[in-house]
């Protein structure tokens, strides 16, 4: 025979302060656990969305990032003639030879410096990234010192808003438009005309080449083609893979730090649950004896106390999750160590993370409840009744 759930729930209600404190501790731990997963997910989403699956990025071999990569004009010309590269309606290859550099900008308000990506794109640069859409102003005119800024940049950095002008490489660059890149990494970039940038920065080499492939399954052939071409010293990656790899270090750091902390903190919460449940058992010894005398099995007692602990932790977990869901309105920006540049991303809550957090809470509850519940179940009827 099982003990009714209402009995278990009412036990929690009787000791409101204790229940609130224990669940509160749990809620904080679940909050930390959930926000870490949300942060990592947000970072992953941002960088995966940055790429397009049938685009390929070509950088100099073993340079790792766009900024460190160097591809000279001859090599770039060879790359865009590869047979796997798609052609646009105008008969030109769907390729953008780009120059990517970092400039130091100051944040609005705090004047703290950060490295921002400046991307000089070719004529097809925008067509290659369908997720990038102009939301305000107009596109830069080729051959002019005009730039368009990602929304995350315009909001955060001084002099990067629409109509303002940035000074770098000995020129004034007017921001004539703002673009939205659908929460991808391009939101943290500033775009301008590639040839103008090359002149201003006095470089005669590109950073990388982006091409659209005729079909997505031709990527292996394209990669083998350019990587084995003796005229080229490059490596090719799918755009999505390339950007996902750029965030590996940061994502790993967030995950390892966050999970380590969650485990340490959960220790405290488990202890809290254990103290509460031990006290519950001690206070109700006579009650347990009575229940046993009425015919309830040891099993039922064990289950009742375990369930009580589980309820307690799920209550805490739910509160923690609700708190964490508010974090979705917050966006974070930090430097990505690998690319040495600023990146903005949001906390992102997925159903999977919600489930993981509740499961984490449930495990904490069970761990905290198992010993006290076992003690309750082991009580002898006579001793327990005498305790009153």
């Amino acid at each position, binding site marked *: 025979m099982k003990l009714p759930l209402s009995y278990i729930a009412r036990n929690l209600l009787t*000791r409101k302060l204790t229940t609130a*404190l224990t669940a509160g501790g749990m809620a904080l731990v679940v909050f930390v656990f959930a926000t870490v997963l949300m942060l990592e997910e947000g970072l992953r989403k941002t960088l995966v969305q940055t790429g397009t699956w049938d685009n390929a990025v070509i950088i100099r071999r*073993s340079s790792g990032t766009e900024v460190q990569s*160097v591809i000279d004009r001859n090599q770039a010309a060879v790359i865009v003639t590869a047979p796997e590269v798609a052609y646009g309606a105008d008969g030109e290859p769907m390729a953008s030879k780009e120059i990517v550099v970092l400039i130091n900008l100051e944040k609005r308000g705090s004047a*703290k410096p950060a490295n921002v990506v400046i991307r000089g794109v070719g004529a097809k640069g925008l067509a290659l990234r369908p997720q990038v859409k102009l939301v305000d102003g107009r596109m830069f005119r080729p051959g002019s010192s005009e730039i368009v800024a990602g929304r995350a940049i315009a909001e955060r950095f001084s002099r990067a808003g629409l109509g303002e002008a940035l000074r770098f490489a000995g020129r004034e660059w007017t921001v004539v438009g703002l673009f939205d890149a659908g929460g991808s990494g391009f939101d943290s970039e500033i775009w301008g005309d590639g040839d103008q940038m090359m002149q201003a920065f006095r470089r005669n080499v590109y950073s990388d080449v982006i091409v659209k492939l005729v079909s997505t399954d031709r990527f292996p052939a394209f990669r083998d083609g350019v990587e084995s071409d003796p005229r080229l010293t490059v490596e090719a990656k799918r755009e999505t893979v390339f950007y996902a790899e750029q965030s590996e270090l940061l994502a790993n750091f967030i995950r390892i730090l966050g999970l380590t902390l969650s485990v340490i903190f959960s220790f405290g919460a488990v*202890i809290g649950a*254990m*103290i509460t449940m031990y006290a519950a058992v001690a206070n109700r010894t006579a009650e347990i004896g009575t229940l046993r005398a009425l015919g309830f099995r040891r099993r039922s007692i064990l289950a009742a106390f375990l369930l009580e602990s589980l309820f307690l932790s799920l209550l805490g977990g739910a509160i923690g999750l609700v708190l964490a869901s508010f974090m979705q309105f917050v966006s974070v920006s*930090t430097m990505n160590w690998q690319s040495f540049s600023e990146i903005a991303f949001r906390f992102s809550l997925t159903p999977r993370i919600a489930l993981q957090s509740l499961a984490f809470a449930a495990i904490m509850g069970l761990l905290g409840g198992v010993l006290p519940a076992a003690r309750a179940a082991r009580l002898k009827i006579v001793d327990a009744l005498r305790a009153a």
Partner: protein
Amino acid sequence: MESVKLAIRNALRHRLRTGLTVLGLIVAILAFGLLQTVVDAWYAGAESASNTRLITRNAISLVFPLPITYRDKIRRVPGVTAVSLANWFGGVYISEKNFFPQFAVDPTTYFKLYPEYLVPEEQMKSFLRDRKGAIVGRKLADAYGFKVGDVVPLRGTIYPGTWSFVVRGIYDGAEKGTDTSQFFFHWDYLNETVKRTAPRRADNTGICIVQIAAPELAAEVAGDIDREFKNSLAETLTETEKAFQLGFVAMTEALVIAIRIVSFLVIFIILAVMANTMAMTARERTSEYATLKALGFGPGFLSRLIFGESLAIALAGGMAGIALTFPVADAFAQRMGTLFPVFNVSRETIWMQMVAALVVGCAAAIVPAVRASRVRIAEGLRAIG
């Protein structure tokens, strides 16, 4: 005195509960201390910066170099006593996981500007003689087992190709906060190779390190240097070494803030646990408190009793947590290798841990103490756990 004894006795009545609470406190105080130390490690570079050193870099960003000719021009600026240069190399030792900073430096001037890097004289001499020589920090040498005479191959990410260096010396830090996880080699070696492979990139340096006669001159000299190169192809930005290092910290500030917030969350978690323990204890003893009141003890005595018990538990946990912080921080630093070049538990951290334990102890006792002092004798005597 009697009340102190009674408080401690009270704490020991429920050994299991007290034990668990103390355990929770130890973990929380320990975690708090470690997180504070991680935050400190972030600022270690700025902390150890000298106030007579300025850093000149390209105004656009660190990615852009400065022409080597700037070194001599900077040296002529009044107030400047010495100039050296350093260039980030960004090589990979075997795999990306083994990260440590490598700099191509001007060997004769660099170590004069950084007297906190202590190199034995013999090793310094053999380093200067060997163009492919390198000086590595003690921590780095320990982490990868580098010994004098070892050949270290690095795969260049910025400068293509595989480069090999011979370890000619190992430097120690003059202070505890000195970064000994760096790798230095001859700038000439880098430059000569680049001249052959990519002539346009040759004769450049990443940054110039400028020594000034007195710290008060910093602003003036920095302004003079930047004016010198105004409207040139490579405009400069000169700042104190500290500001330069803080610039790096600011870029990852979001992470630092997150760690800070989390380190205070752990205190709240343990506060909830501790407050729960005290609330339960006081609740169980309601009839006892009523008895004490009936005997003539006032609410002040009861509060002292409860606060005393709470503080005793908090201090026991806090002290043990602080004591454990040192060995755990050492073990953590060992595991992390060169990721955190400097990882020392500071005195402020210890103070903060103590304050945190005290605050938790006091805060946990407030509600139970108020309840106990308000309890009416007749009601209290009737109460059951």
